[in-house]
């Protein structure tokens, strides 16, 4: 780790939902990581892994039930309500569904201008101008200003959402599956736009996705999430080329999308079984019910979150010793040539 102050960090973060009197869903459970200024940090997980909840917690849309979210080393919940409203403008989010993220009764200009209206630090004419500039920057012509969301395509709406957070000049943008709902042909456009904006404004991204292709394309470091926990974290190259956790390995081999050829695995490991219920996760290692290397130890004891190689963390009893990515058949999982 460098001596740099992390821009966003979590310390044993937990976000729990009480579903009924005796069931608690730990959507995020004891998660710790640091995001450094200027980097793109990827968070990968299946649906149901808690990655969206984690993303919402990072921008204070969900309050931690345990542990902390830290913004530049400070706990935003220690601020007064008024201070928090001011502070959080620096930590923005682009949601998966751009359609739901725009108020259907507001014109595009009004939506884009909204963050500026809240601050009310500039006169109205100037707010309009800044909003129009932001729209132009994301590739929306001024014609769109007077339109309503239902008149726009998904990709256009996502550009509107991006323009809207840009008006705040935030340091951090959490992109929660920001391209998943879009046509494949549009996805690349939006990703390129985000990359351009990062260069131009020195943005820090936290990129939440289920899509390894996207992560490989854009992230400096990645964390892999399974049933509310992190199972692996490290430099993107290292994690994709030499995964330490069998779950990462399984995800990688299931991924048909073009990774750089040296990262591609020759064999495909297919995940067997369903994702267990996050309400009552398996004992010991949560992945053991679907792991082809599972042993008695995995059911008895929870694996520790440890730095196996410098900067490369994993939570597996056998991290670094398992013959992942190129191994012959072991245990239950199928291997397809």
């Amino acid at each position, binding site marked *: 780790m460098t001596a740099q102050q992390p821009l966003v960090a979590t310390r044993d973060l937990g976000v729990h939902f009480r579903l009924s009197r005796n069931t608690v869903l730990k959507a995020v459970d004891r998660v710790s990581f640091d995001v450094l200024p200027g980097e793109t940090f990827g968070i990968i997980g299946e649906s149901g892994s808690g990655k969206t909840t984690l993303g919402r917690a990072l921008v204070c849309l969900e309050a931690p039930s345990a542990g902390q979210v830290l913004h530049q080393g400070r706990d935003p919940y220690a601020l007064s309500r008024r201070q928090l409203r001011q502070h959080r403008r620096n930590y923005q989010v682009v*949601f998966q569904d751009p359609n739901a993220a725009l*108020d259907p009764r507001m014109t595009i200009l009004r939506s884009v201008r909204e963050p500026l209206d809240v601050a009310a630090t500039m006169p109205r004419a100037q707010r309009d101008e800044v909003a129009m500039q932001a729209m132009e920057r994301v590739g929306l012509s001024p014609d769109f200003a007077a339109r309503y969301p239902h008149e726009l*395509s998904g990709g256009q709406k996502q550009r509107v959402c991006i323009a809207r957070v840009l008006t705040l000049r935030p340091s951090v943008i959490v992109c929660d599956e920001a391209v998943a709902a879009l046509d494949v042909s549009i996805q690349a456009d939006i990703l390129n736009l985000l990359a351009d904006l990062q260069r131009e404004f020195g943005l820090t991204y936290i990129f939440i996705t289920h899509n390894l292709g996207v992560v490989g394309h854009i992230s400096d470091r990645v964390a892999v999430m399974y049933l509310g926990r992190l199972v692996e974290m490290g430099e993107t190259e290292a994690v994709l080329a030499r995964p330490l956790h069998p779950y990462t390995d399984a995800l990688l081999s299931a991924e048909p999308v073009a990774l750089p050829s040296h990262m591609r695995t020759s064999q495909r490991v297919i995940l067997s079984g369903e994702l267990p219920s996050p309400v009552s996760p398996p004992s010991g290692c949560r992945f053991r019910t679907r792991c082809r290397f599972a042993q008695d130890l995995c059911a008895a004891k929870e694996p520790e979150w440890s730095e196996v190689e410098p900067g490369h963390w994993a939570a597996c009893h056998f991290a670094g010793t398992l013959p992942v990515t190129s191994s012959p058949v072991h245990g239950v999982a199928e291997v397809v040539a």
Partner: protein
Amino acid sequence: MSAALQPVRAVRRPSASRRFLSWLRSDLRAAVSLAYLLVLFSLSVFADVLAPHSPIAQSMDMLAPPDAAHWLGTDDLGRDVFSRLIHGAPMTLYASFLAVGVGTLIGLPVGIMAGYLGGWVDGLTGRIIDALLSFPSIVLAIAVTGALGIGLTNSMIAVGIVFSPGLARLIRVQTIVVKNDLYVDAARTFGMSPLRIVWRHILPNAIQPFIVQVTLLLATALLAEASLSFLGLGVQPPQPSWGQMLARSYGYMEISPEQMYAPGLAILFTALAFNALGESLRAVLDPTRRRSD
């Protein structure tokens, strides 16, 4: 830059007045109702000019049948029934809008607050609403009128109080639906205050069923006013009101039965018009329910 623009092919939203006209064209019943209510409204404003006689001037010509001078005859005090009917219109409209206004003024903020805040506030409000909804409405209105003091304004405030729990419940449900929308979360990340979120996002997106309900309640309020004035708790003599005219005409029904038709029909038509407008609004504002009522 790779972010190439897609060609703009979306159609422009038609202007408000055009949408209004196409709504009226598509629903004849609503158009007729609106026209009727506009006429009624003009009658109310210009009652003094339009009514051929004073509504309270008595004469010796009592219980006269309809003729050229008195189109609907005269009542037991020799007053012109047609003029009283016209002067009853402003009373009716005032009463309906007052009751619905009071109901909205109480129900809307309470319901939005309960729905938005949730938790124990919502729990307590829900219980109070349940309790108030188990009162037979007219009886409660009469009791409240008795407490506030008899008269049109008080009785309609009472009716409005009786309306408020139902309205609060309606907007509460809508608020809960809307407050979980993503654009509300987005507004929170911009640092928008809860009050402003309610005003800017929740109210505009949650209000439609409320508007429909309020329109339908205008008819209910009108009927309540008629009942209360009929019972002598609403409009006080000599001021004319349709309900009170019915009460009077009932007294001499065996002599001139035709006098109870005009005020009754006036009440019926106005209630029908409010209801038709409400139903039509429901169909326009909420296309998913077009078939069901």
